């Protein structure tokens, strides 16, 4: 929250001093600043933030005597990287742990559950999957395939059943089997649908109440999402009290800049990023790497 507000305040101040800085000589010219601003907007950082960040960097450049394109971009990357909230605990390292995956339709929740189940099993965890998506056609069959690939048990109920009951079942079964990593998929929903958000709040409530292990609620965000991503994250956060994010589909050309706003404004750490199609393609989040990609104009 403070980050954006500070930027916005800084914005008006910077504009006033802009004329003083304009004479700033050195290796980069006016084109550089315009190009930088465009790069940030194109990376889905948001126009307000992009303008504010660029102006702020001009300030810093003048003060610290940064001159070259490379110096400036890496200074900016470090600044943006510092805005990401950091995680106290990683829900996929914690033992035992229960993780619920939520998000809008088509964000990649089911695939994420499947891949992380596989990663968990590889790391020697006793994983169990719960299929809390009892709404979408064939969601269960899809998750079933992933469970087989990862060779972990899956708990489900027929389509149309109460998703909260699946959570109850999977925790019960997990306790019997001695599972130490419980991954629960939920049905995709638009954050504007109040009824479905209430349903999800119930699912999370039941899970938190029933579980004897720590429960983490993770929002799955598609990297191609634009400015609407912030609105999504806010609604999910206020309904469910999220613990963090997973950003998917970063293997495309989208930079996922909206994640900066989400992470810094809502104080939510990014636990993993999805970078490819194959079952191993989930990586730990590296703030500096992410920010560097965001400010690097060469790719766009």
């Amino acid at each position, binding site marked *: 929250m403070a980050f954006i507000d500070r930027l916005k305040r800084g914005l008006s101040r910077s504009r006033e001093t802009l004329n003083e800085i304009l004479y700033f000589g050195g290796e980069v010219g006016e084109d550089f600043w315009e190009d930088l601003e465009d790069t940030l907007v194109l990376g889905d950082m948001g126009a307000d933030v992009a303008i504010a960040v660029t102006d702020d960097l001009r300030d810093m450049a003048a003060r610290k005597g940064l001159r070259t394109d490379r110096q400036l971009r890496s200074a900016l990357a470090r600044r943006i990287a510092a805005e990401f909230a950091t995680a106290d605990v990683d829900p996929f390292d914690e033992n035992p742990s229960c993780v619920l995956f939520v998000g809008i339709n088509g964000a990649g929740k089911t695939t994420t559950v499947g891949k992380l189940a596989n990663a968990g099993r590889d790391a020697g965890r006793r994983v169990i999957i719960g299929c809390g998506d009892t709404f979408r056609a064939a969601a269960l069959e899809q998750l079933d395939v992933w469970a087989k690939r990862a060779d972990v048990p899956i708990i489900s109920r027929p389509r149309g059943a109460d998703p909260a009951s699946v959570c109850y079942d999977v925790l019960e079964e997990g306790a019997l089997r001695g599972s130490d990593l419980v991954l629960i998929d939920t049905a995709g929903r638009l954050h504007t649908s109040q009824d479905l958000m209430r349903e999800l709040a119930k699912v999370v409530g039941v899970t938190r109440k029933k579980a004897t292990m720590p429960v983490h609620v993770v929002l799955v965000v598609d990297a191609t999402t634009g400015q609407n991503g912030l609105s999504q994250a806010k609604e999910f956060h206020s309904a469910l009290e999220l613990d963090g994010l997973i950003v998917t589909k970063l293997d495309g050309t989208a*930079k996922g800049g909206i994640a900066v706003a989400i992470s810094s404004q809502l104080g939510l750490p990014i636990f993993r990023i999805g970078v490819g199609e194959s079952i191993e393609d989930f990586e730990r989040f590296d703030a500096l790497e992410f920010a560097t990609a965001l400010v690097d104009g060469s790719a766009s």
Partner: protein
Amino acid sequence: MFNSLQDRLQDTFDKLRGKGRLTEDDITVAMREIRLALLEADVNFRVVKKFVADCKEQCLATDVLDSLTPAQNVIRVVLDELTGLLGSTESSLALAPNRKPNVIMLVGLQGSGKTTAAAKLAYLLKGQGRHPLLAACDVYRPAAADQLETLGREVGVPVFRGDGKDPVAIAQGAVARAGEEGADVVIVDTAGRLQIDEAMMAEAVAIKRAVRPDQVLMVVDAMTGQDLVNVVTEFSEKTDFDGVIMSKLDGDARGGGALSVRAVTGKPIKFVSMGERPDSLEVFHPDRMAKRILGMGDVVGIIEQAEALADEEQMRDAERMLNEGFTMDDMLKQMASIRKLGGVGKILSMLPGGERMMGQLPQGIDEGVVTRMEAMIRSMTPEERNRPKIINGMRRARIAKGSGRSVQEVNQLIRQWDEMNRMMGKLRSLQNSGKLNPRAMKSMMQSMQEGRPPQGGNRAQRRMQARKGKRR
């Protein structure tokens, strides 16, 4: 911190409206706001630059600045430009009349909503008297074919799965099989693919070559950000799609992508997908979308929707209501149709200024009001429903108890019935025209809003509040 595009532009225009004459500086300020608003709405920034430049140039023309109502003219210019950008004509599906079967192919990124759109499209075509066959060519995502099959069953359309391995063969198989299935149009659902995945893009081209679709439609998520331009440019080059289905527009995404797609590829948006149900695929109207973005409301859309839902029986009911008065049962039916239209919020959001009105309500729209009213009416005897006048104090107490609401709320309901009954008089004039009047709809909506649980206020107070809300 982000206001909707509609709010932003409206605020800008409100500022302009307050002025008799506009200077070039005023226009510059307004255009800066519009630029930011469009960027926040995820319109591609190159498109924004050009759009704003074009608008500004037109606004600076002397006949705009010197006219008596310059602000109105600026709005007109922006609206026209926006409509132009979204595509100036409605473009529907062009299927060759003498080809059997016709073929429609869907492409797009992962998670954009192709499979769901395929089922909705099948439902839409079925409603037009066609006989679609769905081809499940997504052989990569686990259970994608199962999903299509389930959706196909729900909308009563057969699904061809083939061997479940070779997408090209499945598409060809479906076309060959169409005759046997009695199908006259084949809808090919393909796997989601990244535009930079060469092998997968080549596969899409191969499917296209094999079945020569009448129409290739690209499904685009309304929430996509700036990267959309890279995506559609590449898809346009490789698959040369004919149009776009914009999905997930029922959320609060501002759908700026719709503007970008058209501007960058020249391809029209053909349909918008607005919900989870199979009937939620709507034909895209560029003018309405532009108006909606500018805060001018989608009055035509809501009337069309209401007309589609009003069956003959309801027409007879309406006539009876006009002649014999309005009963509680009629009110119950009205509640049901409000639900059918998507709830109070949806209706309100389609009316001019509705989005803003909703934003100003402290706790947002209380959809529960409809449920509560239904509960109270259901606690009445048939006689009470037909002649609400007979509901005395004792009956009120009983109804309150039966529905679990307070007596005050029952009083409120009866007052509202009274008002609606009087409104019937006003509606009588519409009987001749045979159309629902947007203004009547709006005042009905306001009554609904006044119907929120009373906080000890009387009617005069509520009226004043409603007026205040309208003025702002």
